[in-house]
């Protein structure tokens, strides 16, 4: 599973992307956030307030209940501010 981080989520986690292999109990975006939060103080800081985090699964916006699987590309980032 490939995980990407953008903007201040990337800065707090301390990396732009990583390959992870969470246990099978991690089935959705919310579960992945909980699992990633335990990986480092940086991860914990990035995901401290899940309300400020948005996610995409395979490049589509995805809510906390969206399923995640081994070959997915998952991205975490703040609310977007383009335009």
């Amino acid at each position, binding site marked *: 599973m490939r995980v990407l981080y953008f903007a201040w989520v990337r800065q707090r986690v301390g990396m732009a992307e990583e390959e992870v292999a969470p246990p099978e109990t991690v089935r959705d975006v919310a579960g992945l956030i909980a699992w990633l939060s335990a990986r480092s103080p940086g991860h914990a800081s990035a995901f401290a307030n899940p309300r400020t985090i948005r996610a995409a699964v395979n490049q589509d916006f995805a809510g906390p209940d969206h399923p995640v699987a081994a070959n997915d590309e998952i991205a975490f*980032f*703040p609310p977007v501010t383009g335009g």
Partner: protein
Amino acid sequence: MTPRIAIQEAPFDLGAESARLTAGRTDVGGLASFVGLCRADDGLAAMVLEHYPGMTERAIDRIAQEAAGRWPLLGCTVIHRVGRLPPGAPIVLVLTASSHRAAALESCAFLIDWLKTGAPFWKREEWADGTARWVEAKAEDDAATARWAPA
């Protein structure tokens, strides 16, 4: 209608992009454009734009197709710059062409409202005093996008 979508560090050329949508054709009656620029609010040194390569282009292509379904568009161009941009620099260009003016004007407003809330770009402001902060999403941008939702 195949939209032209570009994410780039380089500046864009409004005149050239406009000419590209109308060159050699005589069915375009209206061409609407919006250019968003980097304002120099109180000591801003630069705006740094980051995006999600791949998802950005997909998301913009999808919304351009949605616009083409809602309005009879003859052409549509979206160019969004990324990287470090000084105050005064153009950041984003939306161009829409249609046979009638209302379709061009409305779809242009629709696309720029959507880009503020639906495309994976993030802005960081760098200040003259060396500090930096990520721009926070605005409730008014969500409201602007929401007004285009089907009733």
